[in-house]
């Protein structure tokens, strides 16, 4: 009889192990985000909101390239106002991106940012960004979307230029089907 008890105990543990690993699979999702945030590895930017600006560091100059990318099948026009901005670490800079909806229907878009090199991602603070919210444009409407950012003074010396790229996704189908309010803005 004891072998049956042994088996049952072992099976319980192994099943628990399997269930925990199933959970671990899902835990990899937030873990991945946390890992990327801590290390800035995939260029995801999380430094958002107001920052204290205590004067620019005029001894260094950083070149920020701005890139606008359309995701596949996105018909909008989407361009940066300035292609390159020269700035100093600690200096607040304002620029903007232009978008226009040339189609005959109302569409909703979401811009997803990415920074290269990844190492620089955590030193780019966005005070205000159009990527914080979804952009809804009526047929034929256009918009100028503001971007306010500061480069951290702690930016490593060897980084003299960085690229901030936005990819514009068409999310009209998702937004019209799901309740808009439920959409979480994780970025």
């Amino acid at each position: 009889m004891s072998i049956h008890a042994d088996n049952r105990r072992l099976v319980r543990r192994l099943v628990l192990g399997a269930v925990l690993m199933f959970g671990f699979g899902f835990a990899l999702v937030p873990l991945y985000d946390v890992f990327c945030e801590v290390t800035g590895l995939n260029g995801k930017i999380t430094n958002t909101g107001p920052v204290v600006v205590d004067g620019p560091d005029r001894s260094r100059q950083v070149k920020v390239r701005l890139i606008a990318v359309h995701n596949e099948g996105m018909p909008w026009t989407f361009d940066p106002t300035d292609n390159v901005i020269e700035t100093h670490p600690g200096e607040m800079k304002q620029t903007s991106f232009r978008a226009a909806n040339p189609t005959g229907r109302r569409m909703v878009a979401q811009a997803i940012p990415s920074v290269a090199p990844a190492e620089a991602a955590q030193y780019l603070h966005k005070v205000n960004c159009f990527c914080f919210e979804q952009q809804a444009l009526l047929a034929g409407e256009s918009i100028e979307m503001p971007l306010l950012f500061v480069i951290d003074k702690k930016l490593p010396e060897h980084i003299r230029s960085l690229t901030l790229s936005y990819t514009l996704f068409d999310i009209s189908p998702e937004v019209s089907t799901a309740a808009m309010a439920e959409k979480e803005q994780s970025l």
Partner: protein
Amino acid sequence: MSTLETTLESHEHAHHGPAKGIGRWLFTTNHKDIGSMYLWFSLLMFFIGGCMALLIRAELFQPGLQLVEPGFFNQMTTMHGLIMVFGAVMPAFVGLANWMVPMMIGAPDMALPRMNNWSFWILPFAFAMLVSTLFMDGGAPNFGWTFYAPLSTTYAPPSVTYFIFAVHMMGISSIMGAINIIATILNMRTPGMTMMKLPLFCWTWLITAFLLIAVMPVLAGVVTMMLMDIHFGTSFFNAAGGGDPVLFQHVFWFFGHPEVYIMILPAFGIISHIIPTFARKPLFGYASMVYATASIAILSFLVWAHHMFTVGLPLVGELFFMFATMLIAVPTGVKVFNWVATMFRGSMTFETPMLFALAFVVLFTIGGFSGLMLAIAPVDFQYHDTYFVVAHFHYVLVPGAVFAIMAGVYYWLPKWTGHMLNETMGKLHFWISFIGVNITFFPMHFIGLAGMPRRIPDYALQFADFNMVASIGAFIFGLSQLIFLWNVIACVRGGRRAEARAWEGAEGLEWEVASPAPYHTFATPPKLPETPR
């Protein structure tokens, strides 16, 4: 033999034989019946997946599109991979474990016989569901067996949902099989069989079973995330909603890399039985074999991103995964060394199982070396997604895992059927397979290095000659498996009677019972022989 009969008689509740008719197979809890069903199922899947492979090779015989539409070609590569991995190789190992593990450790059956029945009977339904997608609107899954998002989410055919549920069912089956094997090995060993006297096939399967329990749930998790992205509006892998397609690859390969060891570790175990038998020497370095297997299993969790060198990993990541991957060559090298050292100065004979085992050692090592080349992150940028990768993993899976399974089948067939194999036919099968497999996969190294991408139905003209050679080899290899089928059926139906110890040098408890093994063995735990391996 006589001890066995007395033990059977003394056991009051012993059944004397199998039930009659189809009910025997539907309701059986006998590990030998279930093992046989696993093995036949796996052989059927091997032929279905093989036909798909031949269709792929037929299309690639010449440049240009001749036989199939590119969309259907993609379905073939996807289904071939899925069926071979989950339908042929994994169930074959579970079948061998069902047959041999209880007999090797002196147990009367698996620890959980009814769950054993269930874990087998899930499989035909899972694969019926998977194969049925071929006949659906939009066709079968066409995104490759690795089903990377967003190919498998945003751009997937509608049948992807059936694929997801089929994967769930295979996962449940594998996990139940793994639990059963662990419970059997840990709790049902005959008295005196300590862990370090455990036959190596049991050791490698025990470690494999832990790998299965650790990673099959992660696979279930990743397909569940796909399901939610497709049907419930989540954005795990959708960048527009805050997700990340690269996350898919991380989660998938966290499963996928241990999975490749799931498909090779039991093969190591089989080879570690066959080589000592036909070299007539005990296995060299038993303990180091156990530790090497465990090291490979542990390292397999730390190397997954070597499949993703080109997604844009940071330099630190590339270096870590490169060196961790190369580290796996050390325990693998220990194993190859031990096999060679076992043969050194042995009294070797070259029966069919031994021929397959020797081919395994040589050709698996070639596959291991091309793996080392792929592990070098800077050069992987050239090899990534080329036929070099195809050559590499087919070398470790076909003359690796599949040859080991065939070696095991030939080795234990006398025990299962009570008949010796027709050696001439066995050797014929071996030599045609051996030549065919090399003609098929060796040229793929060259076309891969020359830059031919994988998963394409058409290719540039400079790859034409080697592709033609590979296709000819594929048909030689594929057709030679009909000899295998013939051999197995012939051995079941008749042949020279096998003794209990069918091979002269064979050792282990499974050779202490009669051939064919009685329906019930070791109803009372046997005494361990004096010189256990």
